[in-house]
């Protein structure tokens, strides 16, 4: 009897998932979206789709590039920035305090807290946002958003948080609205070239634009800030977003704009369960 009930429940579950797949009116929950995206990569990339590896971007899918990259990681190009970040972290503000007064002394869990939805302010709080808030709260000048000091401090915190898991759960109506805003941004075509993020990083992941293989969208936020050889320095996630928007001849939004914050929030939810491994190195 119990067994019968079990198989009944199973049938009901598989039936409902078929219903979900065919019912276009149904507004998908974040968990369903994540499941669908993972399923899509598994279906299209087959045995290559070792999803836990996607935090390594295109290197998860291409062995030659991966070997080169692993050699680079032996003497990581972001090492100097980590030192710079540690110095900035330890440096006293004019009022005698330092970053630890905002983030605490143990920052091993700090990276994993971001991004999150602040219910009272109804906004998405990012790590970079809180780094600059800490500065201004203490009477210091904020850093520029996309590179330099902010990326160095962000890298310092990311490094301490390596090995944690991405866990971003929109729970309230307001949080869900931010999630959906980011989702719409991700799937909407824009720019003169009329391309969406999904066109490249979902439907054509592992294909090549010219010589450049496209990374899958899962895992995008795991390893930022990133040292990009093309930049010759560290850059934040929002800097990269701006670059991809420019490439399709769309006007980029400002780093830490509501658009990019919602996009970061959506991408983080998609990447739930994956390991945090910042800072990263990329071509």
């Amino acid at each position, binding site marked *: 009897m119990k067994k019968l009930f079990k198989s009944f429940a199973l049938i009901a579950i598989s039936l409902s998932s078929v219903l979900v797949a065919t019912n276009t009116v149904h507004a998908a929950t974040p968990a369903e979206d994540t499941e669908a995206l993972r399923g899509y990569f598994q279906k299209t990339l087959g045995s290559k789709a070792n999803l836990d590896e996607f935090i390594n971007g295109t290197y998860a899918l291409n062995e030659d590039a991966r070997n080169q990259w692993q050699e680079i990681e032996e003497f990581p190009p972001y090492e100097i920035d980590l030192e710079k970040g540690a110095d900035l972290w330890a440096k006293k503000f004019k009022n005698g305090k330092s970053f630890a007064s905002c983030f605490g002394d143990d920052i091993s869990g700090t990276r994993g807290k971001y991004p999150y939805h602040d219910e009272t302010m109804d906004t998405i709080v990012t790590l970079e946002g809180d780094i600059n808030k800490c500065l201004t709260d203490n009477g210091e000048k904020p850093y520029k958003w996309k590179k330099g000091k902010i990326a160095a401090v962000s890298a310092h915190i990311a490094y301490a948080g390596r090995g944690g898991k991405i866990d971003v759960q929109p729970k309230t109506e307001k949080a869900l609205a931010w999630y959906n805003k980011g989702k719409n941004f991700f799937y909407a075509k824009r720019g003169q070239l*009329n391309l969406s993020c999904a066109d490249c990083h979902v439907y054509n992941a592992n294909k*090549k*634009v010219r010589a*450049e293989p496209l990374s899958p969208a899962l895992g995008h936020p795991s390893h930022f800030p990133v040292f990009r050889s093309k930049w010759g320095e560290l850059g934040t996630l929002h800097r990269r977003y701006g670059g991809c928007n420019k490439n399709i001849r769309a006007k980029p939004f400002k780093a830490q704009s509501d658009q990019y914050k919602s996009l970061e929030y959506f991408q983080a939810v998609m990447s739930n369960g994956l390991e945090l491994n910042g800072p990263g190195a990329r071509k």
Partner: protein
Amino acid sequence: MRKSFRVITLALSTLTLFGLVNFATVNAGEMSAVKEGKKIALNRKKGNCLACHLIPDGGEQPGNIGPPLIAMKARFPDKEVLKAQIGDPRSMNPNTIMPPFGAHGILTADELEKVTEYIHSL
């Protein structure tokens, strides 16, 4: 008899001459459109078709998002259909990833014309 034969040959050779000349001018015009079209198609700021397509004599390291651009006359016997595919690929596939080169003003009408000539020659 001889005379009429002469007239016929004359008429024939005039015709051939005329035809040849005519043929040659069309060819020259097409040739330069094909050449210019190639430049525009390969220019990264214009067609940048190599980003997504292999083109036989187009250059190294093509992308592979779209199909290789080969045997185009067989696939697009009608040049106008090819022009529509390049000008606004959404007319063939609403969800396409290929940019609408004409509709979004990435190429001018003249450039679109020339790129079509070039692609049709492949």
